[in-house]
């Protein structure tokens, strides 16, 4: 069995950042759930803050240059993408949206995506559903039903008691691992693997 590659994009601004913390918890849950399905996986995490300047350049010039192009290829070529943004004004951050803006139209077609967001108050939880999810629906990504919002109180254990953060993370990781597992047929994709050789074509005529 080939190893599954998980790309993680975190749009946190601080250091340390609760957005990164959530991203790490989500990727750990995913790896564990894949392991439970007897699949090995590797995780690569990208901090948008570190490539912010390149993202703005790509936005202004209309195309990604140099290292950014490779980074985007690694992100969109993964078997699954975890995308986590802090919420500002009940929506994704400007940096997160700038990253989404420079993605090619078809680059996430059918790619399993797990969404996460962090914020001060659980009152903004639904921003994930009405703001973040539509972006990835537009990109035709395969977004799992459970998205995970972590409010400040969730980290101290004083958040939602009925459905606490670790439980939400595990549930999302399980759904995400299922999608990644089911996507076996799509991996790896080589558009030329079924092209017959000249020898074959000469023999067939």
């Amino acid at each position, binding site marked *: 069995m080939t190893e599954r590659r998980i790309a993680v994009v975190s749009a946190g601004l601080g250091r340390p950042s609760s957005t990164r913390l959530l991203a790490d918890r989500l990727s750990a849950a995913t790896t564990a759930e894949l392991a439970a399905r007897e699949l090995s996986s590797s995780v690569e995490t990208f901090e948008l803050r570190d490539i912010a*300047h390149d993202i703005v350049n790509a936005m202004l010039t209309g195309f990604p240059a140099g290292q950014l192009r490779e980074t985007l290829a690694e992100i969109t070529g993964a078997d699954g993408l975890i995308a986590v943004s802090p919420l*500002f*004004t*009940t*929506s994704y951050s400007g940096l997160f*949206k700038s990253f989404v803006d420079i993605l090619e139209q078809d680059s996430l077609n059918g790619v399993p995506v797990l969404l996460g967001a962090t914020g001060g108050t659980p009152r903004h939880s639904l921003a994930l559903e009405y703001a973040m999810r539509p972006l990835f*629906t537009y*990109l035709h990504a395969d977004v799992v039903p459970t998205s995970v919002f972590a409010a400040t109180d969730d980290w101290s254990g004083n958040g939602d008691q009925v459905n606490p953060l670790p439980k939400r993370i595990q549930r999302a990781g399980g759904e995400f691992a299922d999608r990644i597992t089911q996507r076996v047929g799509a991996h790896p994709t080589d558009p030329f693997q079924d092209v017959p050789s000249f020898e074959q074509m000469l023999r067939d005529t």
Partner: protein
Amino acid sequence: MSDILVLSGSPSTKSRTEAVLGELSQRLREHGHRVVEAPIRRLPANALVAADSADGEVRALIEAVSHAEGILVASPIYKASYTGLLKSFLDLLPQHGLTGKTVLPLATGGTPAHVLAIDYAFRPMLHSLGAEHVVPGYFLLDRLIEVSEDGVRIDAEAEQALMSVVDYFASALHRRARYAEAS
């Protein structure tokens, strides 16, 4: 007379959104308002993405927002929503940075399928910033805008609808000013 700030979230130097905004600013001036146009792409990119509100130009625009009574927020539609460039600037405003302001949301886009972005993306964000009155917005299709050396031309029917939205914004600001005077 009110102060209006026109924010444009287009990253393009040959932006049709901005070309249209020039026309709309003129219209608002004819209504007796003071209008300043502020394309966000002119702000230093580094300061913007690093959320550095200490930068001089960024701070000046944040100040301009706080002093304006009316804000026209315009953006092309990217991935079914406003641009990251626009959001990057709005993220730097203080919490409830649009308190007491009258706001007109405008979008330009390639397909009528994205008309609702005004109501599901722009509006909740503007309300969350504390805007007092978000007047009805308008979505303008790219292909109805023609930019040439002589200026910008908008399809007659679309232009009429767009201008009525702009006129409403202008009159809402006049009403607000009269109310403020009387109270």
